[in-house]
């Protein structure tokens, strides 16, 4: 009696395993077990990997090590590739990063953005990191002005894409940024803007 019950249990288990494998193969889902659940940090890095090979003005960096892992570009074509990255990895692990919670009641806001180091040399590989946290995914623009209030940089960051995601965002400004244009030494003023006006601002000093 016990053998028959055990055999049925083993058979059911095998059927379930086969079904699970078939489901996984067809759904292209990333497995996440309770023990090794993908952390937000790891998911962040994995998504950056989908952007590998893209050229850009800012570099996404690994928040943990501050090492450059990929280039990004806010040009629409390249962002489509990045968007596909989100879709292909569309499991619950990624959804934790993309955030399924309803953010509609959350006001779009940015913590005080900081540039590290400040002052910094743009003419080096390391350059500096512009660090800021978003309250939710939302679109905005970054403007940079020189000491004559002339705009030297403007870039739109689209909601949910690199630089415009909920939580910490890190952008690198170095010799490859701004299309290779090296800013003259001096103070520069960066402003985060969306349709509601100025969200945050700060100042940085460029050394020769």
């Amino acid at each position: 009696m016990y053998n028959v019950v055990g055999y049925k249990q083993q058979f059911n288990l095998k059927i379930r395993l086969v079904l699970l494998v078939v489901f996984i193969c067809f759904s292209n889902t990333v497995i996440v077990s309770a023990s090794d659940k993908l952390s937000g940090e790891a998911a962040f890095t994995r998504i950056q990997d989908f952007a590998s090979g893209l050229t850009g003005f800012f570099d996404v960096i690994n928040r943990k090590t501050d090492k450059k892992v990929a280039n990004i570009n806010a040009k629409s074509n390249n962002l489509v590739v990045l968007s596909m990255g989100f879709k292909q990895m569309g499991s619950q692990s990624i959804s934790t990063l993309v955030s399924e919670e309803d953010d509609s009641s959350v006001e779009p806001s940015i913590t005080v953005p900081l540039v590290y180091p400040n002052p910094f040399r743009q003419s080096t590989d390391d350059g500096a990191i512009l660090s800021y946290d978003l309250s939710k995914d939302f679109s905005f623009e970054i403007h940079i002005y020189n000491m004559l209030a002339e705009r030297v940089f403007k870039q739109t960051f689209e909601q949910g894409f690199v630089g415009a995601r909920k939580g910490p965002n890190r952008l690198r400004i170095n010799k490859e940024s701004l299309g290779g244009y090296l800013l003259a030494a001096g103070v520069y003023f960066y402003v985060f803007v969306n349709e509601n006006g100025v969200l945050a601002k700060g100042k940085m000093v460029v050394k020769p």
Partner: protein
Amino acid sequence: MTIQRIFLLLVIYSVLLCSTHAVETSYFTPDLVGSSARSIRLGGIEGMSSHSDSVFENPAALYRVKRFSTTFFQTTFMEEVVYQNIAFAMKTNLGVFGLGFFNAGVDNIPKTMKNEYEDYTEYYVKYYFNYQNSLLKASYQVSPSEFLHLGISGSYFYNEFDTVKATGSNVDVGAVLDFERLNFSILVRNLMTSNEIRYVDSEIGSNSSNNQTEKLSIQNIYSVNYRLRHFTMYGQIKTVGSQRELHKALGLQFNPRFLPFLEISGGYMQYPQLSYEEGVLASKEKTSFAVGIGLDLWGLCLDYSYARSDHVSFDHNNYFSVGLSF
């Protein structure tokens, strides 16, 4: 008239035939903002002032100082950058001597540091520092004849922020031709092209700018004005840097005969500006308009100018300057 024709041909040849629209990076000097509200309301015209602020423009124009002149100019950009200058000029038997000091300052700039933890990096402000960019000018003017005036200025540049100090020097030479209704001004700024700004930085490592240098852009500035009844028309062509990027300016001033102490003017400027917008690095022709008013009350000159700005939340700039001449 022969001298005027030769002068005009020289200007046309050297500017229009040799200029380009390229933009190069060079040291930021505080006088880029303009030497006075009067100069700005005329579109940045230089070399036509009657006051001591000529020290920052064409020193040859100091011949217009009667005995003594002093000027003060201040403006603030984006509620952050404070520009100030002060200048003095005095006429002596040996010629006119001038002295000027220009400063651009920004306060409370965050010095940032980071803490690296196992799973994230924290950035924080350690302290705040100030940025000062100064320019000291000493000028001398002499008039070989009634209509020809020559001038020379020595410039000393000083820049200080956080762990960095920078110094440099250069020379400007200029001439003004005065034919009563018609005036020509020619200036070569930063004549010594080999002179550079040299940086000293006490910071160590790859982020140190110790021994780094920046160029001082050579500038050729040709200005002309012509008085016709109540109006004075101004024009200026400036080439900047070895790439000879072209800056153009036009100004018009209304000086009613029935109110001789009042000046109403407007100016237009066009110059190339390099900017990176939505993934594209491009040099665009930037245009700028300014209007303003000036009052000359028995030697006390008050000037105000208004100009539009690029900035998303500060769409205009106001400029004030005051001068005393006798």
